[in-house]
């Protein structure tokens, strides 16, 4: 009874809170990082060095008036932010933070559900997330959000193909769809898959940028062309939900990249005996560190690269990444058949 219902519930509560808190502070991190890149200070007023800024922002957003446009499709308008935040949060169910950790003598695997279709589950959940954006665009009954919504969904669908192709080659490599299994396969193969599959890694990273609507692919919210993008008509907490979803998706993509390519909770050089000192750091700390590196690169890229034009985006997706993904899959499968276990 305890292990079937109570323990997963406890993990869900802990992970949801951790995600929401880190998402809140990621907004501060993003503003600070971009400010440093642009030789500014960023938020400085609330708390020491602006460290309490996210809390002030949250209170502001909660107190703001919640407006529904008169001509909007009310039900769908309410539904859209929910549809975009829920997939972003339930994706964390299959992300393995550590093999197990011991609390008060209990040994607990640090993953909510180690299902044997974990990777497919993530792909399908992200494909549901598209609805949030497209519905927000439709329900606002306004020109800019509709255009942004259609743009966003076209972008997500295009890049999903390349990313899925790449995930299939990772499945061929590891021989399993389970996230835990993929990490163990990397341990047994004595290599992080980033070194075995560099092409797949690059495709996943570019696809991840596009799927989370981050710069340089943040066309759905291109201010110059579309005012605010698909959330132009949203205010207050509903607007905040879209942002929470975007940042939570960034964490999810970073965690997926960590799991697939950087060996998840494994310490660097997990098979090298004389580096045993590194083993004293718990696995979940390694996991969070690697994830943080990806998140930082996300912010760094946003501060560095200009936005793509829409036709360039589509050309990159369909004419470069998808053929490359298919070629990578064919090469991986060929090697797998020839060598057995690469």
């Amino acid at each position, binding site marked *: 009874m305890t292990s079937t219902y109570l323990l997963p519930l406890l993990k869900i509560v802990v992970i949801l809170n951790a995600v929401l808190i880190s998402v809140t502070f990621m907004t501060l991190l993003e503003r600070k990082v971009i400010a440093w890149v642009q030789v500014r200070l960023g938020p400085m007023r609330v708390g020491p060095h602006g460290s309490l800024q996210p809390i002030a922002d949250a209170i502001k957003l909660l107190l703001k008036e919640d407006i529904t446009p008169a001509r909007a499709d009310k039900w769908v308008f309410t539904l859209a932010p929910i549809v975009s935040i829920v997939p972003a949060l339930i994706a964390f169910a299959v992300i393995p933070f550590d093999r197990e950790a011991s609390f008060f003598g209990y040994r607990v695997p640090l993953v909510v559900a180690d299902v*044997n279709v974990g990777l497919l589950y993530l792909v399908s959940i992200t494909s*549901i997330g598209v609805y949030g954006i497209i*519905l927000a665009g439709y329900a606002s009954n306004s020109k800019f959000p509709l255009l942004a919504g259609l743009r966003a969904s076209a972008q997500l669908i295009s890049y999903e193909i390349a990313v899925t192709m790449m995930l299939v080659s990772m499945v061929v490599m590891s021989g399993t769809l389970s996230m835990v299994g993929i990490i163990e396969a990397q341990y047994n193969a004595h290599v992080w898959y980033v070194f075995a599959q560099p092409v797949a890694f690059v495709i996943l990273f570019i696809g991840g940028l596009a799927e989370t609507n981050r710069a340089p692919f943040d066309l759905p919210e291109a201010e110059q062309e579309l005012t605010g993008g698909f959330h132009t008509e949203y205010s207050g907490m509903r607007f905040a939900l879209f942002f929470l979803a975007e940042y939570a998706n960034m964490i999810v993509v970073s965690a997926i990249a960590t799991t697939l390519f950087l060996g998840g909770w494994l310490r660097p050089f997990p098979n090298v005996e004389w580096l045993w000192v590194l083993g004293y750091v718990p696995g979940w700390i390694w996991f969070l560190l690697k994830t943080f590196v990806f998140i930082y690169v996300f912010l760094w890229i946003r501060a560095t690269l200009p936005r793509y034009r829409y036709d360039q985006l589509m050309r990159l997706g369909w004419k470069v990444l998808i053929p490359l993904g298919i070629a990578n899959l064919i090469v991986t499968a060929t090697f797998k058949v020839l060598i057995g276990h690469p």
Partner: protein
Amino acid sequence: MLESIVFYTLAALIIGFGVLVVTTRNTVHCVLFLVANFLCVAMVYVLLAAEFLAIIQILVYAGGIVVLYLFVVMLVNLQRPPDASSGRRRQSSAGFALAAVMLAEISAILVFSAARPASAAASVAAPTQPAMGNTQVVGMMLYSDYLVPFEVASMLLLVAMVGAIILARKEA
């Protein structure tokens, strides 16, 4: 007990959403009810311990195909349904005929499986080796016992894709 409560709730939801899909006037709402319907069907698959099928149901139908429906609906922007009064009678009689065929098929399946319960159960249980998971079994079946149907289906999809590209290129 718990399982049957969940099953009947899901069944009721599926039928309810199905009715809403055909009765709602607003096309976008129809598509949304269709998504809800697909998600409930996926939950029934989970209940049957077919989690691979459930995920594929969400990925392909709810996540892929219906997004394209939504796309078409928004681009075409149907204010009101096209004038359907001319062909309505023929359509409804065709609908009844199809429903009758479906009913006959389901009852035939029920009768046959009731007639030979032991052999039917055996044929289902035999290929499922306990050592392999659901997903592996599906994969093995697709590439061994059902190889020809699988290849025919993928050929059909390829033909459809080539056809779509040819139709689109004619404009340019």
